[in-house]
């Protein structure tokens, strides 16, 4: 009996199922297993002989839903509530109470008239299905080769552990409520640089990144002294910004030196003009990695890069290609620093209870809808046939993305512009996207996607990471207003449950509904376990170097 079912609520089987199991054990399941038919990527069902149509043993009818008794294999029908021959079967045959829905291979209790669940039955179904699939390379079900090291996720560095940090933070608890959080400082626009300011605000308040720089992990004075010849160091310039922003000085700061350094690093983006915030974000992380990451990171090198940019933002995406003929699945893994999502335009909101017109379904684009879109199985066109190793020829395929490993800080990028190659123009999609403040990424994990592919059966697949934390909280939203050619970026920051609007030099307080109604472009979510809430709120108090717990912070009111 597979014991690791912690993701499922504990099921209490009905009395009839319990009785059946006591009397017959797994015999019936094993017999059913033999008659199961599992399509390569679809559902499992009971095999029906092609020469015969199933008929009800009571009424010889062809209509309705058919259930096969686990004990005598007789098939009975159930047509709504009018004629329930499955019930009749159980009444006329003592203890023939459990049956199987032949269309979906689901257990059914004839007496309770309800679908029931048994992990051992699910295991039989899944095993049958897995046996039918070709031997996968690193395929849909994980082979032994790719193993994720079960490293502790909150591994910032040897001398950084949450417990001691919490102790430090608690000592400073007597903080007047009228104080604004530390680290709130406007950034001067240097001329079309709001794209830079908006992302900088988000980075400054990304808890792991903030903690890294405030714990002096990259001291710009020490670094430059070490290698004066190597003057260009983006992490140093970022360290300078952190010092400035957390100095307590409230007048807006001009990140001029940073701009200068960044232009030297990203020559192709170095110009006085409006730019894309997302492009800037990737460019900055690249700049940090260049300085602090391993010099060469070959694709074959599966060891994760330990530079702060990757430790904070790097996740792992999985792409599955399934042959529609034989079910052979090949998976590839790619690291990512963010996830770019298309707006789900075609959906309509299912919850009409809160709209003023109950009969009207207003199409609402949601972030979860976009994530669903990102992870849905996509039928590749017949012009995109993939060579299947098992079939030894090109076949039609299904592609499905999922998230193998979640980063500490998840950056979600909304693709708000459309290219039309026909008309040779681009346009911006202004459509509002609903996004939650608390986001559970569990449904988008590879383990969940694989589970769904197998019909959500109760089975622990190899590679399931059960202790993964998937709950995220938003802390920064970069919004865009205006047109493609000329627009404006503003960042909303969430600190101690209060939202602040950071519009270049202007920092103001706003209600959360303003943020909900805004046009999000880049959303930054942090793992809930990293961002503490309640009394031990770390979002307003910086982490101090462990050597000096009582260093007073200038400007601390």
């Amino acid at each position, binding site marked *: 009996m597979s014991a690791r079912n912690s993701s499922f609520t504990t099921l209490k089987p009905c009395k009839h199922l319990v009785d059946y199991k006591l009397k017959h054990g797994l015999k019936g399941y094993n017999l059913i297993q033999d008659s199961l038919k599992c399509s390569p990527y679809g559902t499992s069902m009971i095999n029906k002989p092609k020469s015969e149509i199933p008929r009800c043993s009571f009424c010889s009818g062809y209509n309705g839903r058919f259930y096969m008794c686990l004990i005598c294999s007789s098939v009975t029908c159930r047509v709504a509530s009018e004629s329930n021959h499955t019930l009749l079967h159980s009444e006329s045959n003592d203890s023939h109470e459990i049956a199987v829905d032949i269309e979906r291979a689901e257990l059914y209790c004839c007496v309770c008239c309800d679908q029931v669940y048994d992990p051992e039955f699910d295991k039989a179904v899944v095993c049958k299905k897995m046996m039918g699939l070709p031997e996968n390379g690193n395929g849909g079900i994980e082979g032994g080769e790719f193993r994720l090291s079960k490293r502790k996720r909150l591994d910032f560095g040897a001398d950084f552990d949450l417990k001691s940090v919490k102790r430090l933070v608690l000592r400073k608890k007597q903080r007047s409520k009228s104080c604004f959080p530390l680290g709130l400082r406007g950034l*001067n626009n240097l001329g079309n640089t709001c794209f830079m300011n908006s992302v900088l605000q988000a980075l400054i308040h990304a808890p792991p990144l903030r903690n890294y720089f405030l714990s002096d992990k990259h001291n710009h004075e020490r670094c430059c002294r070490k290698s004066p010849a190597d003057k260009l160091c983006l992490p140093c310039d970022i360290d300078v910004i952190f010092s400035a922003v957390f100095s307590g000085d409230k007048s807006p700061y001009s990140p001029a030196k940073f*701009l200068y350094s960044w232009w030297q690093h990203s*020559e192709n983006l170095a110009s006085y003009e409006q730019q894309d915030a997302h492009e800037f974000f990737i460019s900055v992380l690249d700049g940090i990695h260049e300085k602090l990451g391993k010099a060469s990171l070959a694709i074959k090198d599966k060891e994760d890069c330990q530079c702060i940019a*990757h430790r904070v933002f790097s996740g792992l995406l999985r792409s599955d290609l399934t042959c529609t003929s034989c079910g052979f699945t090949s998976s590839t893994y790619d690291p990512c620093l963010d996830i770019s999502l298309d707006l789900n335009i075609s959906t309509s909101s299912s919850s009409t209870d809160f709209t003023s017109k109950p009969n009207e379904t207003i199409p*609402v684009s949601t972030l979860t809808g976009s994530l669903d879109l990102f992870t849905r199985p996509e039928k590749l066109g017949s012009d995109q046939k993939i060579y299947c190793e098992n079939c030894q020829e090109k076949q039609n395929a299904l592609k499905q993305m999922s998230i193998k490993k979640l980063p500490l800080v998840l950056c979600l990028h909304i693709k708000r512009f459309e290219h039309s190659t026909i008309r040779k123009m681009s346009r911006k999609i202004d459509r509002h996207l609903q996004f939650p403040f608390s986001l559970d990424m569990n449904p988008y994990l590879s383990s969940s996607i694989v589970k769904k592919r197998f019909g959500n059966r109760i089975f622990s697949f190899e590679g399931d990471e059960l202790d993964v934390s998937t709950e995220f909280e938003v802390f920064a939203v970069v919004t865009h207003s205006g047109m493609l050619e000329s627009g404006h970026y503003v960042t909303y920051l969430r600190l101690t449950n209060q939202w602040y609007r950071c519009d270049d030099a202007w920092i*103001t307080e706003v209600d959360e509904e303003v943020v*909900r109604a805004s046009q999000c472009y880049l959303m930054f979510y942090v793992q809930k376990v990293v961002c503490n809430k309640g009394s031990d709120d770390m979002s307003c108090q910086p982490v101090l170097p462990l050597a000096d717990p009582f260093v007073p912070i200038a400007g601390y009111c």
Partner: protein
Amino acid sequence: MSMLKEDDAFSNSELSSDIFRDILDSIIVDVASESHRIARLGLDRNLDLEEEELRLSAEARARASDPSHSGEANGKYIVDIFGQSHPAIANEIFDCMNCGRSIMAGRFAPHLEKCMGKGRKARLKATRSTTAAQNRYTRGSPLSSQTPYSNSTSTNRSSNGSSAIAGDDYSNGNLEEP
């Protein structure tokens, strides 16, 4: 439950609508069975939270579109949380780290562009001189904006960020262009 009637009593359209109804019923029960499993196994435990978020968002949007609602303070003439007000163009003065001249913050980027010899105008100038053309190739490898670490599925990145706009327009953010 309907039994198959005698052939002559049945019209084709009745038969086809019967079959259609059966197929539809079957599909509906399939969906119900799938949803039943999801609900019973607790795979949709976040449903309430999600609906709450949707509701809050819809309310927020309704209030935002209400003309009587004051909304966020717009414009650059507001006072920030520290009680400060700032001019539209940042007027802090500091020294350019490239040439040493004193520059006003709000005009720093355009200055730096010319100062460093970057940007479209500077590049256009450069193509006209042969020494400059030589320099361009030895200046060092230009980093493509698509690093190996960017999202593999994202295709919307331009290889160079320059656009046709280079004016002194103060408003300042745009999305990528092809």
